[in-house]
């Protein structure tokens, strides 16, 4: 029942992902590189409108529905899969790569899904495949993967219940702009937000992602949160609650990233932070802000991948992930360092990088809507981003003290992947036109005005200056890492301290209680349901008959009364 002949783009990646675990060598490399390119081509073959439908359970499923927004996200997902594939050519675990490609295919399936059921199915495919990617991170990833799976199953449950409610309320499975007027829609929103890393469940992201392998996290960073951004853009633009959710995420990410020591966890917190910008933009809901959120998702996927590729290269070459163990790598990994710095500049929205042309649209959206408070918070957050991702990450990994490590540069394919992403970062920063033309609404915005550039440079340079003044001050002391923490806390003032001390203690206590309660519950369940428990062992015939009598007795007595 096709209106025209269209191959679902998601299919190419998912099929490739299913084949990958079974092939090796050059064939595997060829498939890794070709499948995303074919997918990208297919994405651009999908014309506007509903293209592929099938009926299921009496509903008309819109398997493929093309429009500008879907194409924008699907394109960046396909580009990301290609860069990720290139980067991971020498990943020995074909299983991880297969899971990653199915995962990417699921994300593309979500973007083209025209109805709630199709969306849900691909949503679940993503959840399962991404869990497998986390699990491929090795022995240490078991617990994190389990927590990750539990969180996403919970999100899936909320989403499914919401969708069923929505279908019963409206009688339609169409995925359209929704308000937050019914319980069902709240549940759908909650399901979406869990994947976006929104409070109170932001912690799954920095918990699970850094547990993945050096290549796995590159994939993970791109799809789950950004499909959540996509569905929020589509389903809940202009929902005011998203502004607050987004702002919370922005600052949550900054605060925890500044306190963090694991280099990839810093970047994971920074994902929450950046997605916060997008969610805020969606909450503002003007065309400018929505364009900004979409554009920021596009550019963020690319520079975050670049950052994680440089971090992944460091992890692969040194085997170390903690900032305190690293440092001084610029001596032998200058190339990786340059790439990391480009990514860091982009995430900090430095002029002439992709972050500048996208994030500024969200701020502009806030300004146009006369949301002064929001605008101010976003500006303050921009300085915070520069501190935690723009300076902290490259400084601790590549400069700082000399850790004595002398690792070589990563293999050519990893470098090539980084060059590709870096080229996007700078290219889009200099020529934003092509990206702007892909955005869902017409763009009437010029990023490079004098006042804007000057404002941004001032913001960045002064926060940079502040950083290096403190740094000089600190270099004279010996206990360098500890003092850095102290300075950061000073900088962030009571917010940080309150959050850190208070929440950490509360969190510890919560974990402790949760642990005891869960242990007790578990042993209780085991006592009753285990092999020797009343529900697990073989009953004597007499007891079976007894319960039969009880049942009958209960009915008969009831009938008598």
């Amino acid at each position: 029942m096709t209106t025209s002949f269209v191959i679902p783009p998601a299919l190419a990646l998912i099929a490739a992902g299913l084949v990958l675990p079974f092939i090796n060598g050059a064939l595997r490399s060829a498939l890794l590189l070709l499948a995303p390119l074919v997918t990208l081509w297919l994405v651009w073959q999908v014309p506007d409108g509903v293209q592929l439908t099938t009926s299921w359970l009496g509903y008309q499923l819109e398997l493929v529905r093309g429009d500008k927004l879907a194409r924008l996200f699907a394109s960046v997902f396909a580009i990301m899969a290609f860069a990720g594939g290139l980067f991971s050519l020498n990943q020995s675990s074909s299983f991880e790569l297969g899971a990653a490609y199915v995962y990417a295919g699921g994300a593309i399936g979500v973007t083209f899904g025209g109805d709630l059921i199709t969306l849900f199915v691909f949503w679940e495919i993503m959840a399962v495949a991404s869990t497998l990617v986390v699990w491929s991170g090795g022995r240490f990833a078991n617990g994190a993967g389990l927590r990750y799976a539990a969180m996403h199953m919970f999100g899936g449950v909320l989403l499914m219940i919401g969708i069923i409610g929505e279908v019963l309320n409206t009688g339609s499975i169409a995925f359209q702009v929704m308000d937050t007027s019914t319980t069902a829609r709240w549940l759908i929103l909650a399901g979406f937000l869990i994947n976006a890393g929104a409070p109170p469940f932001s912690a799954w992201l920095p918990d699970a992602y850094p547990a993945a392998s050096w290549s796995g996290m590159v994939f993970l960073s791109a799809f789950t949160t950004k499909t959540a951004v996509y569905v929020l853009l589509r389903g809940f633009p202009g929902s005011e609650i998203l502004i607050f959710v987004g702002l919370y995420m922005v600052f949550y990410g900054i605060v925890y990233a500044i306190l963090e020591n694991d280099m990839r966890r810093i970047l994971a917190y920074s994902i929450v932070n950046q997605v916060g910008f997008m969610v805020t933009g969606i909450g503002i809901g003007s065309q400018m802000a929505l364009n900004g959120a979409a554009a920021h998702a596009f550019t963020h996927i690319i520079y975050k991948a670049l950052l994680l590729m440089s971090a992944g290269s460091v992890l692969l070459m040194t085997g170390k992930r903690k900032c305190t163990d690293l440092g001084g790598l610029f001596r032998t990994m200058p190339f990786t360092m340059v790439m990391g710095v480009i990514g860091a500049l982009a995430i900090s929205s430095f002029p002439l990088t992709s972050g500048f042309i996208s994030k500024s649209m969200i701020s502009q959206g806030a300004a146009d809507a006369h949301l002064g408070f929001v605008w101010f918070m976003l500006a303050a957050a921009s300085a915070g981003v520069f501190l935690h991702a723009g300076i902290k990450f490259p400084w601790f990994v590549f400069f700082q003290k000399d850790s004595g490590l002398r690792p070589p540069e990563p293999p050519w394919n990893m470098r090539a992947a980084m060059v590709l992403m870096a080229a996007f970062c700078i290219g889009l920063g200099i020529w934003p036109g092509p990206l702007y033309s892909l955005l869902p609404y017409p763009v009437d915005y010029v990023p490079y005005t004098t006042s804007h550039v000057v404002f941004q440079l001032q913001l960045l340079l002064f926060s940079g200056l502040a950083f290096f003044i403190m740094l000089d001050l600190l270099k004279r002391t010996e206990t360098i890492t500890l003092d850095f923490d102290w300075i950061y806390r000073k900088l962030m003032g009571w917010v940080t301290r309150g959050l850190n001390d208070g929440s950490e203690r509360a969190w510890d206590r919560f974990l402790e209680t949760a642990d005891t309660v869960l242990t007790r519950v578990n042993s209780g369940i085991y006592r009753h349901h285990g092999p020797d428990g009343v529900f697990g062992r073989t009953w004597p015939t007499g007891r079976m008959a007894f319960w039969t009598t009880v049942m009958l007795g209960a009915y008969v007595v009831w009938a008598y009364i």
Partner: protein
Amino acid sequence: MIRLSEHLPIIQVLVPLFGAILTAFARRGTTAWAIAATASVLAPFVSAAMLWTVFETGRPISYVMGSWAAPWGIEYRVDLLNGFVLLLVSVIGVATISYARKSVAAEIDAHKQAWFYTMYLLCLTGLLGIAVTGDAFNAFVFLEVSSLATYVLIGLGRHRRALLAAYQYLIMGTIGATFYIIGVGLLYVVTGTLNFADLADRLGPAMDTQARPILAALAFMTVGICLKLALFPLHAWLPNAYAYAPSFATAFLAGTATKVAVYLLMRIFFSVFAIAIPASALPVTEVIVILSVAAMFIASFSAIFEENAKRMLAYSSVAQIGYITLGIGLANQLGLSASLIHVFNHALMKTALFFALGAIVYRTGLVNISQLSGIGRRMPLTIAAFVVAGLGIIGVPGTAGFISKWYLAMAAIDKGWWWMVFLIVASSLLAVVYVGKFIEVAYFREPGPDVAEAHEPPISMLLPLLALAFATVYFGIDTRLTTSVAEAAASALLGGAR
């Protein structure tokens, strides 16, 4: 000249019955198998033809035995509901019989094999008979035929505890059947009829004067049938019966026996009592809802901690029956549809799972999960099919199990019970744990010495397994057969049309 098509309802029962007699005369297992296979293969054609006729004409097929008009004579009556059940039972019969040859040859002593097939065919006769008949007493007769045959099937298991399991089931099954017949007797005393449709007509007027015996009859029949379908807490006979029966018998019974009992419960509830007496007279549906939820959780937890893979799946069956009876307890159109859909889907999935375990037993003789480490590398197709069916049990989108879950959730929301949806989905997450436990052992551990020699089962066992695994996916995507028939049957049940 007899036109065969007019006699399909009785042919449905007679073919396996005559087959049973023939196998009783056969000496060799292979001959008996050939006869059983012929009878089994014929059955789905008959039931499919009947279901098709009913679906097309929109009218039930009525067949009067020996030209004695109902309600004096025995009437066989096929409508969408039992047409669907007949098709399910006979299809499972075909799948298991092709699986049976190697499995039975390995697990049953040569001189008992022919008798084993006799019992299988008698069991099939009984199950088909319960489904096809429109007569309460005739249903009892077939219930006993199938039950007695089942006791033998279970008792022929190689494990010593099989005898005890069969004995326990014998006692409990007899209690259940007795309760049922006591209920039928009470109804007969009150109304003077045994025909379901006639009972429904006469019970209403009788309710004014003789409410007590009618309610007692409802209580007896409900408890009796709930015992046969293993509703918690009347399920205790089931885990051992499934665990120690021969692999083939387990797979066949898991897919059919409880399902037919579910059908009988629906028939008694909705085609007889619901029409005649007010729902408030006896809180049957409320009790069933509570017990179903209890089954969904308690049996799932038991499955999680169970070490014997067959017992684990047996507990899982008890939990899944909880979903089925929950739909009955919800007693709305979507709920009954969900029940029927899950009857069908669960039969496919659980039979597939037991096929996979049977294949493992065939190659290794092992049923304890901890001994099966790395079996996935030795028997990749078998375990892959297990995984697919397991995903169906969990209710992953794209599998048949998801359709069941979807309908059940819709039924709960339709009733305004949001919290019930959480319970449904939460209990399905428990299935993730026990299915996951098996998969973890089978795939992610190094193959142990116990499974070193294992490899894929013979093609005659592998094919039905793969076919059912494929069906699990197929009926998760193309749901026209299951949902349209189930919804129409549910409407008919609730509309009081018979």
